[in-house]
């Protein structure tokens, strides 16, 4: 396979980026366009919004409502990827035009906007959604109108739609490596499972429990609190009473902040690792709200950390900061969102067409050697092969990567024996 997924090395500030994009586009319009731009009729046989010079895509995240907190990073990453793709000549000689819609943290609105993007705007791909609920709401729309969704969040699995590429990890990838690591490296014997009360934490903990019990170890407690809950003193007391080796926490959103602050205030110093805290829900983005000093010493299992040391990531982080400001942090989902447009570009170029069916057929097997996380490859089941890493939280809100799996974890959305 030889398709160009190199990151552009031109300096990127927001303003010069736009100017640069424009000038490069002009260059390619005069030079490259003559040579390699295939005719619209051949690359678009199903009436998508593709012209001789542009292709329209949709971005569908919440910029208002409670989920805006989480989804902002994804929008930023997707826009960065698209600007970079445009600056390096676009896709099949066409510049990407973005139509952004607001899901408003409201699932029916997501469905409505998804339908609008597919039916009215005829976009060639949609990058979006964050929560499982929003994905479940748009899924029938994408299947009915045959659209392509690139979904960035780590999630519970139990799904494999031909119309979705899942660029985040599904639950087993994130969970099993993390638990194996604490058991092997830290000698953990007992676990306390804790989560916000909805499908992702519950399913994830179900997989975690099965895996822990398979290893012959013990789950001493399992508990869920409503989304937005802010009082965790009771459960912290219970944890103290049960004295688990590991607190396995999948708390999300505003509850996160409350949980970690109260954990620290209750005298549980995570740096002492008695008990050790392992989470799969706190990325650098969340630490920003929690405060690094309240998170220090915790471990997180996911596929990407901002501090990851490789050339791709260095370029990605600096481009991201140039575009969105120095203070910004990049979490796992943000990186996964960044992969979306690049994976789509690769698939379109492999297929030589924007047609959804051809892109879908071309997708499995697509590799991205320029991914900030290192390397990813699309599996037959539309999830990504990726490594899982363990991060150790520092006081400045970043994670030190202390471990990464040797092999690429195979995505397994319907795990046998974990149902």
């Amino acid at each position, binding site marked *: 396979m030889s398709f160009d997924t190199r990151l552009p090395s031109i300096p990127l500030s927001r303003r010069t980026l736009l100017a640069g994009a424009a000038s490069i586009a002009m260059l390619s319009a005069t030079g490259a366009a003559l040579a390699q731009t295939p005719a619209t009729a051949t690359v678009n046989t199903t009436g998508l919004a593709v012209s001789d010079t542009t292709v329209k895509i949709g971005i569908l995240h919440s910029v208002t409502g409670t989920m805006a907190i989480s989804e902002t990073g994804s929008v930023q990453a997707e826009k960065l990827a698209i600007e970079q793709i445009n600056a390096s000549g676009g896709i099949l000689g066409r510049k990407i035009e973005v139509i952004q819609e607001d899901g408003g943290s409201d699932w029916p609105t997501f469905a409505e906007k998804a339908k609008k993007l597919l039916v009215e705007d005829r976009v060639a791909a949609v990058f979006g959604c964050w929560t499982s609920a929003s994905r479940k709401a748009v899924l029938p729309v994408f299947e009915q109108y045959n659209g392509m969704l690139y979904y960035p969040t780590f999630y519970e699995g139990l799904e494999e739609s031909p119309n979705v590429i899942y660029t985040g990890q599904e639950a087993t990838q994130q969970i099993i490596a993390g638990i194996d690591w604490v058991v092997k490296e830290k000698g953990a014997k007992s676990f306390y499972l804790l989560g916000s009360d909805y499908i992702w934490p519950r399913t994830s903990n179900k997989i975690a429990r099965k895996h822990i019990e398979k290893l012959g170890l013990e789950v001493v407690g399992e508990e869920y609190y409503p989304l937005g809950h802010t009082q965790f003193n009771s459960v912290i007391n219970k944890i103290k009473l049960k004295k688990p080796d590991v607190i396995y926490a999948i708390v999300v959103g505003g509850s996160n902040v409350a949980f970690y602050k109260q954990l620290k205030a209750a005298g549980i110093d995570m740096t002492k690792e008695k008990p050790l805290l392992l989470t799969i829900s706190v990325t650098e983005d969340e630490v*920003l709200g929690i405060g690094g000093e309240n998170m220090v010493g915790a471990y997180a299992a996911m596929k990407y950390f901002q501090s990851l040391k490789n050339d791709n990531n260095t370029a990605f982080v600096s481009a991201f900061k140039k575009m969105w400001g120095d203070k910004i942090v990049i979490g796992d989902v943000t990186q996964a969102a960044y992969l979306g447009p690049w994976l789509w570009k690769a698939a379109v170029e492999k297929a030589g067409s924007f047609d959804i069916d051809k892109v879908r057929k071309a997708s499995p097997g697509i590799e991205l050697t320029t991914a900030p996380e290192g390397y990813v490859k699309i599996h037959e089941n539309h999830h990504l092969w990726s490594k899982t890493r363990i991060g150790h939280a520092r006081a400045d809100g970043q994670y030190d990567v202390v471990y990464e799996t040797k092999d690429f974890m195979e995505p397994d959305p319907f795990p046998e024996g974990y149902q």
Partner: protein
Amino acid sequence: MIGDYSYSEFFSILAMQGFAGLILFSVFVLMALGLAIIFGQMGVINMAHGEFMILGAYVTYLCSVVVTDYVPFLFPVYFFVAMALAFAASFGLGVLVEWALIRHLYRRPLDTLLATWGLSLALQQLYRSVFGAREVGVTLPDWMMGSISLGDAIEIPINGLFVMGLTMIIAAAVYFIMFRSSWGKRVRAVVQNRVMAGAVGINTKQVDRMTFGLGCGIAGIAGSAFTMIGSTGPTAGQLYIVDTFLVVVFGGAGSLIGTIASAFTISQAQSTLEFFLSGSMAKVLTLLTVVGILMLRPQGLFSLNIRR
């Protein structure tokens, strides 16, 4: 031995759990007091109460940033200044809102509810535009985090103690203002008979404005204090709104004592249930019990005679 635990473990847990209940109680009182004043004394339902709290939280955040950048040696004590400023900001916004909105709607209580809901939407978007959609982290002085150990297994969170102390001070201050000062007498006079109060020379408009401002100001202090235990984001105010309203309604409109009693009942029920059940079920059971009791006794625990 009791179950799996030794006696000493059991009692230390009992103590800590009791303390957790007391912290929850303090949080509830702090949340609800401002609303209870506005609702109970003025009959105005302020749906933007949560947003006034978040205003206090954002003021605290700004203080923490400014102090760290310019006068770092004041950092250990900045929180007190921040709380005062939070009160001032929320009080100011409250007075402004009363002047612009509420005073036109006193005879239409249901409409104040809608107008303040609109206000809360606008404020949320304002916070989002100014501070960004992401949560902000408020850095606290070290002495406010951590815990005090009493004996082997008992650890008392300092921020919990702080919230409890603060609640007591605020509650005492409210008691003093409402029941021991001449201004409080005027407020109560206006509540009981607006026309007569006006006739004897009380400036009822000013009393209304100050009462509303006071309620909002207390919300601001609460928001400031909650940066220690909760999150600060544009929509975080909505996390508190249901609990707050339930506490006030359960206590009975118009009764500050009722509000405190109901905060105590609900917090103890919730923290006890949380210990024996899983978190979500505890919450549902608590709420169901509260609503169940409200079905039997809709006027709440303590009430003025409502007859409509």
